[in-house]
């Protein structure tokens, strides 16, 4: 089972190492990890997708909380949140297939952000299943390269993840 955890951390060097090191030495599995600065310049937010049962999730959250540079750890439930990931996919095309690829891109409300003679780059944003679906469809044309950001997530409605609450 997969869980999404939002981790507010001090925006300082070495913090990512502390978090990543914790996962490896405690034997937790990271599915994806995305990190960037928040509305406060001194605070970064990591979105970590971790696989395991509820006990694993509980230990992950408690162990993360023990790190001095971790300010707040919140579980973001799948059903009540917005989950997004961005992927860039370089697809091989020729004059015969270009139109078909563009049609698929259209259906997925993705974008073509670079066009070459033999390839183009598709930018797609969405939840994991959407990205997996377009990947599946584009595979027949030949995916030359693909990069994904890892998931970011935010609770719907008024609920916020803030640093002051810890």
């Amino acid at each position, binding site marked *: 089972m997969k869980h999404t955890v939002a981790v507010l*951390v001090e925006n300082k060097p070495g913090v990512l190492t502390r978090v990543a090191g914790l996962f490896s030495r405690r034997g937790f599995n990271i599915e994806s990890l995305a990190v960037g600065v928040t509305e406060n310049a001194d605070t970064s937010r990591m979105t970590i997708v971790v696989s395991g049962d509820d006990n694993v999730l509980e230990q992950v959250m408690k162990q993360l909380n023990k790190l*001095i540079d971790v300010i707040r750890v919140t579980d973001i439930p799948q059903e009540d949140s917005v989950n997004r990931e961005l992927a860039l996919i370089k697809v091989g095309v020729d004059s015969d297939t270009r139109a078909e690829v563009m049609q698929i891109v259209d259906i997925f409300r993705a974008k073509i952000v670079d066009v070459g003679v033999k390839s183009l780059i598709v930018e797609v944003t969405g939840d994991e299943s959407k990205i997996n679906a377009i990947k599946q469809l584009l595979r027949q044309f030949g995916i030359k390269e693909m990069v994904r950001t890892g998931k970011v997530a935010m609770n719907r409605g008024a609920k916020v993840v803030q*640093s002051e609450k810890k």
Partner: protein
Amino acid sequence: MTKPKMSGAKAIIESLHMENVKVIFGYPGGQVLPLYDELYDADIRHILVRHEQAAVHAADGYARATGNVGVCLATSGPGATNLVTGIATAYMDSVPIIAITGQVPRPLIGNDAFQEANITGITLPITKHNYLVQDTKDIPRIFKEAFYIAGTGRPGPVLIDVPKDTQIETIEFEYPQEVKLRGYKPTYTGNEQQVKKAAALILKSEKPIFYVGGGIIISNATEELRALAECIMAPVTTTLMGMGAFPSAHPLSVGMLGMHGTRYGNYAVQESDLIIAIGVRFDDRVTGKISAFAPNAKIIHIDIDPAEIGKNVRVDVPIVGDAKNILKSMLKFVKQEQMKTEAWNTKIAAWKKEFPLTYKKDNFLRPQFVVEQISEICPDAIIVTEVGQNQMWAAQFFNYKNPRTFISSGGLGTMGYGFPAAMGVKVGKPESTVIDIAGDGSFQMNSQELATVVQEDIPVIVAILNNGFLGMVRQWQELFFNRRFSSTCIEGSVDFVKLAEAYGALGLRARKKSDVKDVIKEAVKSERPTVIDFVVEREENVSPMVPAGAAINEILDLE
């Protein structure tokens, strides 16, 4: 008021003064020269060890015995890496220490410079937190935070890595009044609803038992524990780290539990209907086969570290906070009249009678006898141990009365810990008799510190239970590897009396039971660093024993 200007090195000394540090254990080197130059004039005692590992163990022993933060100091690279075992030891047993290491100058970091090691990276998983000084003006703040982090909440080691050029650079010194750490706010007061829930479970229980550990000692909660235990008339079992948290001779004490615990202690845990676990972490050496651990018991778990709760066992009532506060508030909600533990205590008394902790009483000099004699002659001594059989016998056969009188590497099980730790204990508690109950194997891992205790006049007593074996490993080989004593015989490795004398310490030896009393008395009377070589029965086993992987009531007496 203008802030005084000073070098980073001087700022470190001033910070240590602000934290009331009176003693440092350390070893100099190239990248800490500016700091050692400042120490030369400072009003801080520096104890020069002979190996950095001893510095960190000594700081650890000092901290465990006094409850204050211990400080050690080493140079970069090999100096810093020699601290690693000691830092891991302190981390596993939640001991507050500050390790200060020199580092190559900032412009050289990352270049594989001479004596460079990434010590903050290396110690990441074994420190509560660590710092690399990147800006000299951060030194006061970092020291303030480091001492605060080390000594509060669940204590632990904090390392501060100080590049040489930051020791030289001048800053304006101002020590912060308070720390501002958004991500560190330990919980001290237990949730009252949870305390009430726990009290209700206690009042309903008929076979309650306290299972207490190092957390009681760290939080200075021994009196509250005793008051609560006597109020509800429940037996108390302690972990190795909890020795001294409850008087060994108290009628409610059932001794240690786990692999080498008492039979009655293990039976009581297994048959209990309620475990009141305080400052413990349900370690595998304690629980044995976890799925068979105390099958009928509900569990109340009190700990300051929320991550310990629910880590190894399911808990019915968790309470996060400081043991002392929680026990105090729990006392308000329990009443002796409502307890029905008489039958339970009768049963335990019968077990105690039937399965006492004992050993063969014959004419041979057995290690247990030596520990009993030490207990009799030096009842108020602080006992430090090495690791292995000596450690278990020290736990089993000394009569502990007070907290901070049993000092041992529990979690990491670090051989070579005892002697340097004893040195730190004696420095922190100079008025106490300090005895390292040692094995001939463990002692040799740090015996070079005889030079330190002689030079610095630190009169500790090392009582070697000398069986010419790495005894605990030998015991396992006897029991589980068909007596194939692979690489465990170290007989005749050194004459310990002559070794002591070579360093200028007093060396004594006892071969017979009748010699034991005299040599112990002579050691105490001498007020000198002393090594006593007790030549004991070679193949004595630690008994009883729970085989690894068995339930703790499947405990065996060994011959």
